[in-house]
């Protein structure tokens, strides 16, 4: 090596270069966490390599995954027509269908508690408010798009106020008119939403006398002297 100083320098430089790159890569987390340095955030479309693929991918049936067992790739066979899923309250038809025979029933068939209303509110805000709006006025964000504008119902229409509970339940379950059903919402949650929709309707028709006395005072000072029997929200 003594006779080739250039080679020696080149060799040292290569080793130092590789070292530096690996050092930076190896301590990327440290660099990111403590010094805020980020090196080339990578995006790639090829499936990730599995370095040690031992039993990582097994032939068992997995959720949301095509199965090799049947030719159509589905793990489950479609159930025979008329099959009743487990947990469906077949012995309580009103709870399940919102009907008594051919007629709509009314009344919430599960105990209405504050907890149920809170659940209904949460589920309503997730599933219904997108179109119907958080207050039920039919002005949710999706309802402002071409195609849904003017189509989404306000839940405060007399027509819907007058509907039996069972009919609102069925609308959630199977849809109605332009609205598709939401069968993935559980039976209890559908009734919770019905209860919450009733609460929204009731709240909109409420008068000052419906609120607790101490809040009445707050409201009165906020809006000045007013007619106590008028609905708080006067439009519609």
């Amino acid at each position, binding site marked *: 090596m003594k006779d080739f100083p250039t080679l020696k320098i080149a060799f040292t430089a290569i080793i130092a270069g590789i070292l530096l790159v690996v050092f930076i890569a190896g301590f990327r987390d440290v660099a990111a966490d403590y010094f805020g340095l980020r090196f080339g955030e990578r995006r790639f479309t090829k499936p990730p390599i599995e370095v040690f693929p031992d039993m990582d991918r097994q032939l068992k049936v997995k959720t949301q995954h095509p199965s090799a067992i049947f030719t159509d790739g589905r793990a489950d066979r479609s159930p025979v027509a008329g099959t009743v899923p487990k947990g469906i309250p077949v012995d309580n038809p009103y709870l399940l269908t919102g009907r008594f025979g051919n007629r709509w029933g009314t009344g919430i068939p599960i105990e209405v508690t504050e907890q149920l209303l809170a659940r209904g509110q949460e589920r309503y805000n997730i599933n219904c408010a997108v179109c119907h709006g958080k207050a039920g006025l039919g002005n949710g964000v999706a309802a402002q*798009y071409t195609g849904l504008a003017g189509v989404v119902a306000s839940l405060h229409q007399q027509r819907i106020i007058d509907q039996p509970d069972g009919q609102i339940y069925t609308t959630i379950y199977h849809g109605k008119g332009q609205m598709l059903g939401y069968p993935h919402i559980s039976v209890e949650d559908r009734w919770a939403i019905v209860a919450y929709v009733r609460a929204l309707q009731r709240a909109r028709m409420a008068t000052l006398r419906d609120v607790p006395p101490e809040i009445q005072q707050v409201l009165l000072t906020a809006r000045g002297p007013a007619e106590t029997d008028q609905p708080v929200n006067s439009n519609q």
Partner: protein
Amino acid sequence: MPNIFPRWTNWLPLKVALIIAILGFLVVNGVTYYFTPKYTRVGYMPGQPVSFDHSLHAEQLGLDCRYCHTGVEKASHSNVPTVQTCMACHLHVQKQSAKLAPVRAAWESGEPIRWVRIHQAPDYVYFNHAAHVNRGISCQSCHGQVNHMTVVWHHEPQSMGWCLECHRRPENFIRDVNEVYNLNYTISTEEQRILGRKLVEEWGVQPPQNCAGCHR
């Protein structure tokens, strides 16, 4: 007796040792980074059959994660939505859009849309979404701010060491159950420490660290 080895070989063992040490260092560092999900998985951003834009739906329109991922609170897996969920709006909105043609085709035929899976734990890992989201671990903790992604990509390594970071110190990540689906949530380290400890104590959170917690 003549010298069998020339003079320059005197330093050879040291040089060899030095090169082995350097190579060892390189290999160890390289493997711990390039052979682990930090490198192999983070950044995976496959094309999808439908160019669904999470930043439009989840951020601009403000849809809750659970509008589409309906089963996440009940099931071990977080489902992709059924075509019916898409069609609830797209029966009316953007119904001519070419981007939605595969959705309409699936709606007509009943064949599922074959979304490309991005996050995929090995099959010997039994991760349960419901157990996490119902106990204050946000979507964001494991998937990043999906609500700002136009095309979803793998944000966190999701390796075992990464899981254990939280299973050993859940107080660093746990949040109020009402904030689980709020992917824009931020909290200072100091507040997180106080809140985290409180929640861990109140709920009696004891994440398993034994093998059988996740592997059966």
